[in-house]
C-alpha cells in the first residue's frame, strides 16, 4: 500500500481529528474536579498496551434530534473495548464526562450494549465505569431505549459473567439501574453520587433541602442503602482495589477462579485461634481476627464492610484458591441476624453459587433481632432470603460454629440439614434451640415464680443449662455437626474438607427458577 497515498492520508487525518477532540483542556476540566478522564481510568485499569478500543469513531451525527443540538463527537462520550487485567481478558466501558457530560444517547448506549454482548459471548467479565450526566435529553425517547437495552443485557449476563460497576461521577435517574443489576458496585467518595430523583426535584416536590452527597453520596450508599459494596477516597485507590478484587473471580460461570501461587506463609495450625473467643459468653470479639488467621495471609477482601456490619462477607483464599466467606460479627449487635444482614448475606451467597465459589461460614449468632421495627418491615421474609440462598447453593459449603448457634438462626446459617456439606464446631460452641436465659425462663417459669430467691435460682439453672445443653457435644453425638475441633487446626480441617468437596456436583431441579422471597 502506498503510505503517501490519499487513503492512508485520510486515515491519519481522521486519527488526528479524534486526538484533538480529547484536548488537554478537557482533561484539566476533569482534573479540576478531582476526577480522572475516562482514558486515564482505562489506562490505569488495564495491563499496559493491552487495551483495544472498539467503535472509537462512532458518532451520533445521524441520530434524530428531538430538541436542542447535538455535537458531532467521535465515540459519543463512552470508551468501550477489551484488554487484559493481570493477564486475563476483561471487557469494559468507561463513560467520558468531558464529552457532552457523558450523557447517554442512542449511539452511546449501543456501544455499551455491543460490548456487553461481546463479553457474554466470550465468557469474560465486564466492568462499567459510570460518569454520566444521565440520559441525553436532546435525543428523547431514543436515549431511554438505549438504557433499556443496557439493562436487558445486564440481566441476560447475570450469573453468567461477573459484572462490576464503578461509579466515578454522577449516575442518576434511570442510569442507576445498571449498577443495581450488576454484581458488585464500587464507588469513589465525594466525587460520585447515585440517586433515582435528584435534590432539585426532592426540594421541589417535598421541600426538603439535601445535598448531592447527603442524598446519594458514596458513604450513604455504602452504609445506609447497601447499594454500594466498596468505597474509596480517591480514584486511583478505587481502580487498584478493583484490579485486586477481580483476581478473586472466575471469568464466567463454568470456569474456576484464577489460582494464586501460595507462598505457604500461613501456618496450617495456629494456637492463637484458641485465644480469640472469650470465656465469658456475653463478651464480644472480632470475628475478623478468626478469619485472618484461617485464610491465606492478607487474602481477605471484605465486601460491603460498612453495611450491616453485624454480618461479614468477602472473598479470601485457601492455598491460593478463592472462597467466599460469610461470618456473624459478635461485636456488632451481638451478631444477630436482621433485615439488612440477611439481605447482604443472601446476595453474596447467590453470587458465589452462580460462579462456583465455595462458601465458608463462621457462625456465632444468638438469633434474630427482636422488635416491632424488624417484624413490621418483614424480618420474616428477609430472613427467609438467607435461608433460601444457602439451601439453594450447590457449591461446597462448610460451616464453623464458633460460639452461639441458637434456634432459627442456627438453621439459617448453613446447617447440615440445609445441605451444608461439613459443619465443624469449636469447643466453645453452644448449639441449642434457645439461649440459656430464654430457655430457663420458659421451662422453669412456674418454679421461678414460686421461688423465694428467683435471681439466685435462675443463675443456677442457667449454669446447669449451659453445662448440659449449650455445648456442641450433643449435636456432635447426634450427627448434626461433623466434628468438634481444636480451634488451632481450623485451617487444616477446612482445607482438607474443601479438597474433598472439589468435585462436588448437585443437580439443580429442572425449573425456570425458584420463587425466592424478595
Amino acid at each position, binding site marked *: 500500500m502506498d503510505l503517501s497515498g490519499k487513503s492512508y492520508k485520510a486515515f491519519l487525518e481522521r486519527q488526528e481529528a479524534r486526538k484533538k477532540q480529547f484536548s488537554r483542556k478537557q482533561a484539566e476540566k476533569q482534573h479540576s474536579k478531582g476526577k480522572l478522564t475516562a482514558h486515564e481510568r482505562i489506562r490505569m485499569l488495564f*495491563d499496559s498496551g493491552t487495551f483495544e478500543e472498539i467503535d472509537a469513531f462512532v458518532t451520533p451525527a445521524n441520530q434524530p434530534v428531538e430538541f436542542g443540538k447535538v455535537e458531532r463527537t467521535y465515540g459519543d462520550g463512552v470508551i468501550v473495548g477489551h484488554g487484559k487485567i*493481570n*493477564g*486475563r481478558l476483561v471487557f469494559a466501558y468507561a463513560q467520558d464526562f468531558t464529552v457532552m457530560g457523558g450523557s447517554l444517547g442512542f449511539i452511546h448506549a449501543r456501544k455499551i450494549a455491543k460490548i456487553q454482548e461481546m463479553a457474554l459471548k466470550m465468557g469474560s467479565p465486564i466492568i462499567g465505569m459510570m460518569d454520566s450526566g444521565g440520559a441525553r435529553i436532546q435525543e428523547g425517547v431514543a436515549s431511554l431505549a438505549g438504557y433499556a437495552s443496557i439493562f436487558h443485557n445486564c440481566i441476560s449476563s447475570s450469573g453468567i459473567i461477573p459484572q462490576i460497576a464503578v461509579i466515578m461521577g454522577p449516575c442518576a435517574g434511570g442510569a442507576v439501574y445498571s449498577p443495581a443489576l450488576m454484581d458488585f458496585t464500587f464507588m469513589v467518595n465525594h466525587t460520585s453520587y447515585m440517586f433515582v430523583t435528584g435534590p432539585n426535584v426532592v426540594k421541589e416536590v417535598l421541600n426538603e433541602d439535601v445535598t448531592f452527597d447527603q442524598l446519594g453520596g458514596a458513604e450513604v450508599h455504602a452504609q445506609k442503602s447497601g447499594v454500594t459494596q466498596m468505597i474509596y477516597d480517591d480514584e*486511583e*485507590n478505587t481502580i*487498584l482495589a478493583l*484490579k*485486586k478484587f477481580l*483476581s478473586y473471580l472466575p471469568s464466567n*460461570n*463454568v*470456569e*474456576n477462579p*484464577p*489460582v*494464586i*501461587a*501460595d507462598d505457604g506463609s500461613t501456618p496450617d495450625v495456629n494456637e492463637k485461634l484458641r485465644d480469640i473467643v472469650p470465656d465469658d459468653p456475653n463478651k464480644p470479639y472480632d470475628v475478623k481476627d478468626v478469619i485472618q488467621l484461617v485464610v491465606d495471609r492478607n487474602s481477605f477482601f471484605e465486601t460491603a464492610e460498612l453495611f450491616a456490619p453485624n454480618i461479614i462477607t468477602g472473598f479470601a483464599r485457601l492455598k*491460593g484458591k478463592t472462597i467466599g466467606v460469610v461470618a456473624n460479627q459478635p461485636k456488632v449487635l451481638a451478631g444477630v441476624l436482621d433485615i439488612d444482614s440477611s439481605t447482604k448475606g443472601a446476595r453474596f451467597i447467590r453470587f458465589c453459587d452462580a460462579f*462456583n465459589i465455595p462458601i465458608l461460614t463462621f457462625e456465632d449468632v444468638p438469633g434474630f433481632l427482636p422488635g416491632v421495627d424488624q417484624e413490621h418491615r418483614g424480618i420474616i421474609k428477609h430472613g427467609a432470603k438467607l435461608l433460601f440462598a444457602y439451601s439453594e447453593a450447590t457449591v461446597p459449603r462448610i460451616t464453623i460454629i464458633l460460639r452461639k448457634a441458637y434456634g432459627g438462626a442456627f438453621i439459617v446459617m448453613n446447617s447440615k440439614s440445609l445441605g451444608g456439606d461439613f459443619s465443624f464446631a469449636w469447643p466453645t460452641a453452644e448449639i441449642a434451640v434457645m439461649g440459656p436465659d430464654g430457655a430457663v425462663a420458659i421451662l422453669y417459669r412456674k418454679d421461678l415464680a414460686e421461688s423465694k430467691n428467683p435471681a439466685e435460682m435462675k443463675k443456677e439453672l442457667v449454669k446447669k443449662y449451659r453445662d448440659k445443653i449449650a455445648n456442641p457435644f450433643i449435636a456432635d453425638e447426634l450427627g448434626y455437626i461433623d466434628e468438634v475441633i481444636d480451634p488451632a487446626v481450623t485451617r487444616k480441617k477446612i482445607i482438607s474438607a474443601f479438597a474433598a468437596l*472439589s*468435585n462436588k*456436583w448437585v*443437580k*439443580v431441579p429442572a425449573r425456570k427458577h425458584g420463587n425466592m422471597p424478595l
Partner: protein
Amino acid sequence: MKINKILIANRGEIAIRIMKTARLMKINTVVIRTAVEPNAMYLSFADEVYDNTADDSEIPVFLNIEKLISIALKTKANAIHPGYGFLAENAYFAQKCLENKIIFIGPSPDALYKMGNKTIARKLALNNGIPMALGSEGNISNEEEAVAIASKIGYPVIIKAASGGGGRGMRIVRKSEEMEKFFMIASKEAEKSFNDPSVFIEKYIENPKHIEFQILGDTKGNIIHLGERECSIQRKHQKLLEEAPSCALDSRLRKKMGNMAVRIAKAVDYYSAGTVEFLLDSDRNFYFMEMNTRIQVEHPVTEIVTGIDLIEQQIRIANGEALKIKQEDVKIKGWAVECRINAENVQAGFAPDPGKIENLSLPSGQNIRIDTGIQAGSSIVSSYDSMIAKLIVSGKDRKEAIKNCKIALDKVWIKGTKTTLPFFRMLVRNHKFQDGSFTTSFIEKDLDRYYFNSEYEEMLAAWLATKLFVEENLEEDSIQIDFENSKVMSPWLLNKRVNQF
C-alpha cells in the same frame, strides 16, 4: 524471727520487691493469683501461690479484708505486707490483723487512723508547732478581721469566695497594706458572681516544690528520717519522676525539715516506714501537707542514696526489733532519679493505653535499678494501674544521674502499648528540669512539648507509611497467577457444568 511467712496483699512490682527482700531474710512468702492476671510475673517469685481465680465477687481480693485474713489463716502466714495502695492505709484492716494475731507490716491502727484523717492530722501538726499552711477557720466578716487573720497566717495569702470558684472573688495579697483594698474588691466580686460576698483567707504558697521525707520508726519509740525526695514533677497530682535528694535543700534546711518530719511522726508514736509531705515555697519556707503511712512507690531513690533496704527495715520493725540505725548514721551519697514508665498515651493527655506487652527489653548496669512486675507477654489491665516499670538511675551527682538517665531511657525497648517514654526523654533534655528550678506547676504550665523525638524520626515513619502503601497497592502485578493450576478441572465437573443447562 517471729515472722516466718508473709502474705503479700498486693501484686505487680511491689509484690516482687517485697519478695526479693523476704528471700534475702529467708522468710517464706505467699501471694494471691487472681482471675484478672492469672499469669502475672509476681506469681513466679513466691514460695507459695494461693489460687483465687474462682472468686467472682465484685470486690477485688486486695480490697477484701475478710478474704485476706482468711487466706492468711489458711496459708498459715503470720504476717501481711499490704504494699502500697489497696488496704495499705486502712486502719480497720490493720486492726483486724491484730485481732487475728497476724502481724501487720506497717504502722499501728491508731497512727493509720489519725494520719488518715486530715482534720486530726492538721490539729496534731498545729499542736506540735509544725509549720503549716493556715487558713481562717471560717468566713471573714470585715476588713479588720481580714488584716488580723492575714498577719497571723503570714503573707502572701489568698482571698477566696466562699460560694464559688473559677477565679472570681479570688485575690492574692502580698502586702498587709493591700489587704483592705483587695478584701473589698474580692467581696464585691463574690457578691456579683455568686450573690454572696462571703470570703475566707488561706495561706498562698506560690509555685511550691513537693518535698517529702522518708521516716523510719520502731516500736521502742525511736524515729529517724532518711532524707528527702523531690517529687515536684507531677501531672494532675500523679507523680511521674522523683529524685533523691532535692537540689532545693541544703543540709541546714534538710535538718530543719527532717526534724519536723520526725516530730510529727512522734506525735502519733509512729513505727514502720512512712513519708511526711511538705510544700516548699520560693522563699524556702516549708509547710506540712500530710503524712503517708505506708511504703511508697518512689522508695527506691531513698534506698539508693542511703544504702538502706526499707522493706527489710519494715519487716524487722514489725518483728519487734529495735532500729539499729541512728540519725547520725544516715548519710546521703550520690543522686538517684526514678522514672515511672506507664502504659499511657502521652499524645492523648496521658490516657491509659492497656494492652499486651509483646517485647520488653530494659537496660541494666551499675547505675541502673529496675523495679518491675511486667515481662514480655504480660498484659497491662485496666483494673490495675498502668505501670510497666520503674527505671531508677543513679550518679555521683545530679548532673551525672540525669546524664545516665538519658542514656538508660534510650535503651528501653517496649512494644505492645504506648508508653510515657517519650515524655521522659523530653524531660531529661529540658533546661528547667536540668537546672532544678521546676515546681509543681512545671508540667501543666512550663512545658510546650510533652514528648521528644529526634530529627528524622517523623520522616522515617513517613517512609514506612509510604512503603506499606506501595506494598499494598503498587505491587499488585505480583499477583502471581498459577497458570498450571488455574485451568485444572476434572472432566467430571467440567462436563456437568457445561451440560447443566
